């Protein structure tokens, strides 16, 4: 072997052990911080609510959207919000006397289908009990019952920016939307299953447009969705909204 081909082992690359030690120290510090949270925390719950607010409004002026308004949720009979078209299964459960107390709500949020098999709420649920407790602490801020908690104004970051009414009013072409949807259903399942990637079928058009415009303006942070939304024109977004609203 001539001298040119001799390998210098120290110049081959090996991940040094000290990097691992430093990183593990950082992580220990991070995780010990979590132990400080023991009680349900409404502020943390506000963050958890980010997973819900595409479909649900809560707080002053909250309207029914893809899902019903969540004001005065605690102690309310299931399926009882005026003007919201519930699934048949929810109506049946309601006539059986289902009330949204903390236990029922906890079960429902953990896995909606376990309580109401064909609920319109296409959401895989929140498996972490602490996150559910925090979320319910947040939602309690918007219930008169218990009566000593007044209704509060919604926390600002939980609303997407209002979309220009002209854009919102664009009438989308569902056939064009069906073609464009090919890009969406590589990840979002067309049967509405939600496992790691949310369901996007059956949304109200206005909610769909508002959400995609929020990605387009980078108000919503997800990099894949920002990339997808940024290259969609307003007409294309309207077409997708028109198509996905019709998918059962």
């Amino acid at each position, binding site marked *: 072997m001539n001298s040119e081909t001799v*390998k210098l082992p120290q110049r081959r690359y*090996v*991940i040094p*052990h000290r990097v691992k030690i430093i990183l593990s120290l950082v992580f220990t510090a991070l995780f010990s911080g979590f132990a400080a949270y023991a009680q349900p925390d409404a502020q943390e719950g506000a963050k958890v609510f980010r997973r819900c607010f595409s479909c649900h409004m809560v707080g002053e002026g909250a309207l029914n959207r893809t899902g019903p308004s969540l004001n005065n949720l605690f102690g309310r009979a299931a399926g009882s919000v005026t003007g919201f078209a519930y699934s048949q299964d929810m109506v049946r459960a309601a006539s059986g006397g289902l009330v949204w107390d903390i236990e029922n709500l906890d079960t429902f949020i953990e896995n909606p289908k376990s309580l109401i098999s064909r609920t319109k709420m296409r959401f895989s649920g929140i498996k972490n009990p602490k996150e559910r407790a925090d979320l319910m602490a947040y939602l309690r801020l918007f219930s008169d019952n218990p009566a000593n908690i007044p209704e509060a104004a919604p926390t600002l970051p939980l609303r997407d920016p209002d979309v220009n009414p002209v854009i919102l009013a664009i009438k989308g072409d569902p056939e064009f939307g069906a073609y464009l949807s090919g890009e969406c*259903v590589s990840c979002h399942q*067309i049967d509405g*299953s939600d496992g790691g990637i949310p369901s996007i079928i059956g949304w109200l058009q206005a909610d769909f447009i508002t959400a995609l415009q929020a990605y387009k303006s980078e108000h919503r942070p997800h990099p894949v969705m920002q990339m997808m939304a940024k290259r969609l024109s307003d007409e294309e977004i309207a077409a997708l909204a028109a198509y996905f609203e019709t998918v059962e």
Partner: protein
Amino acid sequence: MKFNRRGFIGAGVATAATFGAPMVMGAGHGKPKVVVIGGGAGGATAARYLAKDSAGAIDVTLIEPTRTYYTCFFSNLYIGGFRDFASIGHSYGALAAEYRINVVHDWAIGVDRDAKVVTLAGGSKIPYDSLVISPGIDFVDGAVPGWDVSAQNAMPHAYKAGSQTQLLKAQVEAMPAGGTYAMVAPPNPFRCPPGPYERISMVAHMLTDINPSAKILIVDPKPKFSKQGLFEEGWGKHYAGMIERIGPDFGGDKVEVRPDTMEVVIDGEVEKVDVCNVIPAQKAGKIAEIAGVTDGNWAPVHAHDMRSKMDDNIYVLGDASAQGDMPKSGFSANSQAKVCAMAIRGALTGSKVFPAKFSNTCWSLIDTEDGIKVGASYEATDEKIAKTSGFVSKTGEDAALRKQTYEESVGWYAGITADMFG
């Protein structure tokens, strides 16, 4: 044709619908016929969209030799113990039963482009009006001196998922304590750019559990690789001291293997190893070459519809195609298939054709709940499929974001396999 009342009305509608967009009718048969060779991310998606969107107006035949298709994507997660083998296997039952696709389990061995007929290994001849070739990859002969398909039992490639993947996992599990796993990484371009390095992560994950003093050696002809900074950060964090990479500066591009003695020779230096995963240089699946639509190793296509530059009646999808900027990935093939299916349907039935849009995202798993991703969107230009924008995970992301990225990849797997197989 008999002109009873129902038939006449139907014929009238069909005529009206074709004004301005002539319907191509294959010679000697009523409905246009599309044959799709290859039932992976490109072929299965194209077949499904053609059948679904034409609602019976096109006869679709899908030729795929395997009864159960094991996806290459997520096969590394099986090696790492994050998925069981059955979970990456998919049948063609729904494509046949629900979408009425004629699924033929056989090898395509010939294409007569003048007669527009595909010949199968079993002897059948299948005519087409449009042919989609989506065969994935084959390996370049002699790419790694000492290795050929007869050596793949001693030194598996595991780069077409299936028994090879199971073999490689079993070999890693059987490594002696403190043994060496070597990977001969491929030169560009190749299927799934982050794939070899996700595999290294998954092998390291398994060895950390069962054989923590084992070593991993990557022999790499490339100076750089996909998501390199992210992988290196992750390897430092999770598998410190286990992984060594020899790039072209140190002979990573001058490698030969000796399967009989389990030796890897790197620029003349002999390394004895216990497992050797050889991923050779790649080319379009053989049938593309047989059909005469390749130029060099790959099949050049037009960006707007994936139509071959060699034959107007043939389309080439996925890894086998030379299309421009998109990486060779299942996601890319799935994306290209939908554009292609729309274009074919438009050409054969006069349905509306919209402008092509392409996208790709590749997720990789480094360790438990430590997922990363890279992606981009693309548009068709006259010259090629051109990248318009992209993103990549960042080093130093917090554990919650990495967990979310991993969960997203699991959701994507469910989504794309539903999009392929129905």
